[in-house]
C-alpha cells in the first residue's frame, strides 16, 4: 500500500508543471554523448603531478553512446543474445520481425525507441533477400532511437530443429492438464504449456 506513496506524491508535482520543456529529465537517447574524460579532473592532476599521466577512469574505457543520427540510417543494427551465446552481434539488417506480446512487430531502421516484451514465437531477420527465422521462447527487445535493436531471449532455435511429433504430444498433454488443473499455479503452468506448444505448432506450419 505504501509502495504507491512515492508515485502518488510525485503525480501532482508533475501535473502542475506539465509541459515537456519543464521535465527535469530527458530520454537517454536525446542527451548529447557523455564526454569520455572529465576535463576538470585532468587539469587539476596536471597542475599537481605534471610528470605522470592521469589515471584512466572507467568512462575512458567505455565506448561512447552513439548519437541519434539526424537522418534515418539505412540499416538496422541488431544484437541478438542468448544467455549462452551471442547469435548476432552488431549485424546490419534491413528488418526484423519480433513476436511481441502485442503481436508481430516489424522493426525497420528509424523505428521509435521501444521496449517490447516478447512472447513465444518466431523472430525473422530480413537481410536483402535472405530471411533467417528463429523460434524464441520469451525475452525482451529493446529498440533504441539510433536504429540499434537489442533482442534478448533465453532459448532461440532455428525452426528446423523443432520436432513436430514432440510438439503435438506436448500440446495434447498440456491441454489435458489444463482441464484437470486444480490450483492457480497448476492452471498457470498448463496455460503456459498450451501457449508455448501452440506457438511452436504455428511456427512449424506457418
Amino acid at each position, binding site marked *: 500500500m505504501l509502495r504507491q506513496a512515492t508515485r502518488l506524491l510525485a503525480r501532482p508535482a508533475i501535473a502542475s508543471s506539465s509541459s515537456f520543456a519543464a521535465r527535469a529529465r530527458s530520454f537517454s537517447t536525446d542527451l548529447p554523448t557523455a564526454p569520455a574524460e572529465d576535463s576538470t579532473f585532468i587539469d587539476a592532476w596536471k597542475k599537481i603531478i605534471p610528470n605522470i599521466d592521469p589515471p584512466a577512469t572507467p568512462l575512458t574505457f567505455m565506448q561512447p553512446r552513439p548519437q541519434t543520427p539526424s537522418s534515418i540510417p539505412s540499416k538496422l543494427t541488431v544484437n541478438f543474445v542468448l544467455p549462452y551465446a551471442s547469435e548476432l552481434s552488431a549485424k546490419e539488417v534491413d528488418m526484423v520481425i519480433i513476436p511481441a506480446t502485442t503481436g508481430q512487430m516489424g522493426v525497420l531502421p528509424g523505428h521509435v525507441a521501444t521496449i517490447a516484451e516478447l512472447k*513465444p514465437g518466431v523472430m525473422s531477420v530480413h537481410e536483402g533477400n535472405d530471411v533467417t527465422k528463429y*523460434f524464441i*521462447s520469451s525475452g525482451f527487445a529493446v529498440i533504441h532511437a539510433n536504429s540499434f535493436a537489442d533482442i534478448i531471449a*533465453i532459448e532461440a*532455435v532455428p525452426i528446423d530443429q*523443432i*520436432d513436430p511429433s514432440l510438439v503435438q504430444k506436448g500440446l495434447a498433454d498440456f491441454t489435458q492438464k489444463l482441464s484437470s488443473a486444480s490450483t492457480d499455479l497448476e492452471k498457470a503452468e498448463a496455460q503456459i*504449456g498450451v501457449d508455448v*506448444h501452440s506457438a511452436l505448432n504455428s511456427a512449424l506450419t506457418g
Partner: protein
Amino acid sequence: MASAVGSGAAVPFWRAAGMTYISYSNICANMVRNCLKEPFKSEALTREKVHFSISKWDNGVPQKPSNPLSLSIVDLFFNLFLSIRLVAKKNCEEKEEELKHKFIIA
C-alpha cells in the same frame, strides 16, 4: 503483485497466479528445449541443469548442508519454490517473527 492492477496495468495470468517473470520465462524455455530434435535436445538439456546445495541456518550457525543436488530448472521451481514458500510461511507462524530461519542457497 496484484497492486499492479491498481495502477491500471493488465496483469498477465502467470503473475496473477503468483509466478514471477523469471520462472515464467524459464518454464517457456524448458518447454521449447523439450521439443527439439535429438542431437540438439541433449545439448540443450545440459544447459537446463542447476547445481546448488542448501544449508539451513539456526541462530547464526549453518547446519550441515543437504546433499548437493543437481536438478533441472523445472523440478527446482516446482519442488523447491513451493516447498520454500511453505516452510518460510510455517516458520513465520511458529515463531511470530519474520523469517528467523534463513535459507542460504550456496
